[in-house]
Every structure is written in structure tokens, then in C-alpha cells.
């Protein structure tokens, strides 16, 4: 059977735009900012830390006021959330680095998860910072959490300075703190 004349040209005409689109897609994906350490906009940034009644997994009352004079990273997480599990070693690193200097701390707030599962997760993966229960979702609403992982960086004066989505790295949080230390509130780029 003789090849149909012009079919090769047609294939080239179809393949060329597809190749261009694929190349652009790869370019966009390769050059966009990483999913973690994304400082995003939030109306709560620049406001005082929400006054919300929190409790530890053991049921003891807990207030964020105890961190006055220190930076605190309030991390909303769930064990069923893969990026939350991935950021856990980074949170451990950040907490360990600042445990020595005492200038910053980490607090985790459980998001739609079972306290027993969370306890087991911390027993297996380490992490000695306070883990708070939010069974009624008050803290989630007070901070304006949409989906985990989300972290809120609170300055020594108790003002929310940044909202970080998609997970954190120790270096990323240090970078945000350094930028904020230079003055001003980091409102993020969306």
C-alpha cells in the first residue's frame, strides 16, 4: 500500500503545537516556586494572635500567651496529610535549633484528626513541642485555616506576621524570620 501523500505533513502540523505546549508546561512547572514555604496572603497577617481557648491532647488548658517575647510557629497539621508528614522532620530541626537559643518555638494544632493517632505519630516520629487538640474547630476558624499544612508565624509581640502554606522547611522559616527581623510585616505574594 502506498503511503498517502501529505499525511506526514499533517502529523508534523499536529505534533508541533503539542510539542510547544508541552515544552511551555515543563518550563512553567520547572520555574515555579516550590510547593513548600509559600508565604501567602491572609487577612489575619498583621493582626494580634487570635484569642482562642486551646487544650493539649491531655485536655490541659493552653495559651499562646506563654510565648510572649519569642517567635512561635503555629502549625496546623493532620497525620493523614502527606505534606504534613513530610514537613515533620523540618519542624523537628527548627524546634531543636531554637530550643538552644530559646528565641522561637513550635506549637502544633491537630486538624480533623484522631488524638490517639496523633499521639502515636509523635511517638514514632519524634517532636517534643506542645500538640493541641482543636476538636471543635475554633482555632481553625480563628486563624482562617483552609487546608493543611498551614503554619502561622507569630512575632515576639504576639502579632501574626506570616502565613506559610504547603509545608515548611527549617531554612524557609528562618528566611522568613530574617526578612521580618529587618522590619515590617510579610504579607506574601498570593
Amino acid at each position, binding site marked *: 500500500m502506498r503511503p498517502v501523500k501529505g499525511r506526514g505533513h499533517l502529523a508534523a502540523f499536529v505534533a508541533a503545537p503539542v510539542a510547544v505546549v508541552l515544552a511551555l508546561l515543563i518550563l512553567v512547572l520547572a520555574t515555579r516556586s516550590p510547593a513548600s514555604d509559600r508565604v501567602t496572603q*491572609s*487577612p489575619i497577617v498583621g493582626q494580634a494572635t487570635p484569642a482562642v481557648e486551646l487544650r493539649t491532647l491531655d485536655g490541659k488548658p493552653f495559651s499562646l500567651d506563654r510565648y510572649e517575647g519569642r517567635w512561635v510557629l503555629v502549625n496546623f497539621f493532620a497525620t493523614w496529610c502527606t505534606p504534613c508528614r513530610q514537613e515533620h522532620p523540618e519542624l523537628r530541626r527548627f524546634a531543636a535549633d531554637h530550643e538552644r537559643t530559646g528565641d522561637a518555638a513550635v506549637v502544633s494544632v491537630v486538624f*480533623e484528626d484522631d488524638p490517639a493517632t496523633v499521639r502515636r505519630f509523635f511517638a514514632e516520629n519524634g517532636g517534643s513541642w506542645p500538640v493541641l487538640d482543636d476538636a471543635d*474547630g475554633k482555632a481553625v*476558624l480563628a486563624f482562617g485555616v*483552609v*487546608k493543611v499544612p498551614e503554619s502561622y508565624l507569630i512575632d515576639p509581640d504576639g502579632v501574626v506576621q506570616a502565613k506559610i502554606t504547603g509545608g515548611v522547611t527549617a531554612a524557609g522559616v528562618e528566611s522568613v524570620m530574617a526578612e521580618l527581623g529587618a522590619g515590617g510585616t510579610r504579607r506574601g505574594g498570593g
Partner: protein
Amino acid sequence: MASPPVAARRAPGKGPRLGPWMSSWLVMAVVLVVALALGSRTVGGGSDQDRVRAVASTIKCPQCAGQSAASSDAPTAEAIRRDIADRLAKGQSPDRIRDFYASRYGEGILLNPARSGPAGLVWVLPVVAAVLAFAGLGFAFRRWQQAAPAELSAEDRRLVAAARRARLSVGEPDGEPVDPHGEGDGR
């Protein structure tokens, strides 16, 4: 002879009368205003559950696509409904509750745009547009009503007469009678 002005032809001592055309417009306007007033009533009566649902239906579920906190089964939507119930029980108004959620999630969390600020234009502009449209229509109808009837000039009459003569000389198609009344150009 020029006809007297409309005001001069009215019976003395009597106010302006509304014609049937104007009355129907008036009735329609009243119905519209009543419907809008009923439709825009703020959350008020009803059971506590109804009030919670009414407020929740104006707030988006943050985790869901296109669902209100009233209709979603997501845990956060349930938390919002509980929080709304608590706040209503404490005496907070629906607007204050909505303001709280806007202060945490941004104005985008509200399914109804705010009634003040730039977002308030969403409420005002359609009303202004409707008022302008109705005013424009009224103005146009009035002009058309008041327009003087077309006067035939001598030239117009001459042209019509010539056309009729030409038509009579050719005859009507399909065997229809030509000038059945025998009036010719005299009519």
C-alpha cells in the same frame, strides 16, 4: 386652530387623573417594591436552627468548591455552623458574624457581597441601572406620545395622486376589480 394645552382642558378643581396605562405601571412598581422588600429581609425570626442555617448559607465552606457552610458536610463547615450558633446565642448579629469570617478568610468567604465599601456597588449598580432604564423608557414613550402627527405636504399629495393614477392605468393583478367604489382620485 391649535388645541388648548392639556392642563387647560381638565375640569377645574380636579387633580390629574391616572390613565389605565399609568395605573398598571404604578401597580407593577408597588409589586416590585414589596417583592424586593420581602426578598431582602435580614435574618430575623424563625427557630435558632433556621437562623444558623440562614447565616451559614451566606458563608462559603472554605474546604469545598462552591458549597455554603450550610449545605456542606465537611468538618470545617460543621465547625462554622457550631460557631455561628454560639455567636448568635451570645447576641451577635448576622452581619457581625459575617464580618468575623471576612476578617479571617477575606471577603471571598462571603457568598453575598458586603453592603458597604466598593463591594456595595454590586447591590447599588443594578438598582441605578434599572431606575435609569425605566426613566429612559418613560422619557421615550412620552416623546413619542407628544410627537405631532405627520402633516402631508402638497408635494406628498401630488406624489400619492400620481402613484394612484399609474396603478389605475395598469390595473390590479389577479383579476381583482380596479377602483371598486369608483372613487378614483376624488377620494
